[in-house]
């Protein structure tokens, strides 16, 4: 059998590519830990020589903390609400096909792919007219609604794998639709909830376009604040790198600890993955 044969040379390209992938992270961390005097174009690849400077991270945190909190305040409700709605939609679309369901599903799905520039002007006007422009609630609403296609898709695909007999049995026992959902499908769909919550958390956290268009400076999430900080000449590079790392940290931690679920969310987005 081929499998048993040691093919060590395969590790060479893999390691080289891995090095390439890790380079930006390396530069970000190494620079983040350097002192101001050490941040020099010529030495950007070398390790910090006079100790690790955690103060850059503290300085970056004091500059970014209001925005990091804004992100958190926006992302958590957005992820939870769009997951719950997605689960209900997915359940109905997979198990209780109402008339017209076959038309509704592709129409919802298409929303996943649209360039948001094509709805941006009405979105801003609409948010202004219902007094949600500029604040965090408006951004939450936006992420909930534009998150619906992917959450609905993920749950529908999951519920479609649940045997019909399970649902039918529960009906024979006299349970109505809501009870069937609550007692039968919801408990077994916890893994899907993890997938969807992670996915929504990550995409809302990383969003820039909606945030920059819909929020006032005091409500900026961290991506917008970071982009502004990076544009300024006043803030030193080591602090910018430390700030970038802080902005990436929540989604990186989720990825490190829940990577399996993250991957499943990713594959759901590919439709046929």
């Amino acid at each position, binding site marked *: 059998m081929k499998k048993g044969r040691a093919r060590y040379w395969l590790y060479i390209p*893999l390691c080289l*590519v891995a090095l*390439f992938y890790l380079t930006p992270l390396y530069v970000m961390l190494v620079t983040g830990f350097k002192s101001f005097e050490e941040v020099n174009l010529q030495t950007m*690849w070398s390790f910090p020589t006079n100790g690790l400077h955690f103060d850059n991270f503290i300085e970056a945190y004091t500059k970014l903390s209001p925005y990091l909190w804004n992100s958190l305040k926006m992302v958590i409700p957005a992820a939870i609400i769009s997951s719950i709605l997605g689960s209900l939609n997915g359940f109905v679309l997979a198990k209780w096909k109402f008339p017209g369901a076959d038309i509704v599903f592709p129409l*919802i799905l298409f929303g996943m792919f649209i360039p948001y520039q094509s709805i941006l002007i009405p979105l801003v006007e609409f948010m202004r007219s219902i007094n949600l422009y500029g604040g965090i609630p408006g951004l939450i609403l936006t992420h909930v609604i534009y998150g619906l*296609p992917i959450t609905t898709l993920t749950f529908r695909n999951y519920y479609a794998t649940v045997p019909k007999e399970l649902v039918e049995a529960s009906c024979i026992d006299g349970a109505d639709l809501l009870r069937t959902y609550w007692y039968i499908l919801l408990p077994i769909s916890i893994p899907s909830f993890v997938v969807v919550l992670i996915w929504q958390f990550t995409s809302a956290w990383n969003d820039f376009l909606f945030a920059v268009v819909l929020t006032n400076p005091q409500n900026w999430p961290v*991506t917008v604040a970071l982009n502004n900080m990076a544009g300024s000449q006043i803030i030193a590079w080591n602090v910018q790198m430390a700030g970038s790392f802080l902005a*990436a940290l929540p989604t990186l931690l989720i990825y490190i600890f829940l*990577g399996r679920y993250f991957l499943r969310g990713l594959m759901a987005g590919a439709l046929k993955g």
Partner: protein
Amino acid sequence: MRRNKDTIISIALVAPSILAVSIFIYGFIFWSGRVSFSKWKGLLPDYTWAGFDNYLGLFHDPRFMIDIRNTVIFTVLFVSGSLVLGLMLAILLDQRLRAEGFFRSVFLFPMAISYIVTGVVWRWLMNPAMGSRMSGFNLLFKGLGLDALISKWYTTPKWGIAFIAVPAIWQMSGYIMAIYLSGLRAIPQQLREAAEVDGATELQIYFRVILPLLRPVTLSAMIILGHISLKVFDLILAVAGKQVALDVPAVYMWQTTFDGYFFGRGAAIGILLLLSVAVLVIPYLRYSLRTEEEL
């Protein structure tokens, strides 16, 4: 009776979402379309009918012509680069090596990071300064004796946009690897063994048996990458700021609308973007949903 009650409940459960999607997606697209046919310029809405003026204006707009050229160059490099790298990595990982999980995690982690963060770091890595101010990859190349690779990166005249594909490939090729890997794992082992019995070499197995079987996966990957490429926005902004040389339609739309108050023109760019994405995605959606039904 209960059947009816359940139908009503099921409609009630999905009604809020359907309402939201019809307003925020389809209603807004229609509204954008209306703005794109208006003379709206300035802070106050103006829906005076302008016919195709905004669209015609764009096709005589040198900046929009740069945008189209940039999008084409970026798309070709980004899509082909991510496909080749993704497939290569998937094939390497498909050899069931030890530490497969580790490598997979490394290749996928950029997907978890915002393009803004990526942009901040890559702007530094792709520092175009020369001579004593040399930095980033240029400095690394010089140190390694690879002087031929030193370049002006995204400030290269005319071709700067090509270098934006580098961070984009860095960010997305892991995803493509994952899609290919799951495609490879779905190929029955017997097929490979049969080819082996027939005396095919490993390379022949890949080129004659496996790659043709992966065609649907490649198609999916191309459409996913293609529509991401048409929409590229944050990355350009974070790496390049608002330089016209590196402009793309998504950035132009944002800038002309929210900095310049050319709402009519902005809406027209948005609609053109939507049409270009729709041409790619709608056939794909129909195909995906139809094959799903056949299963």
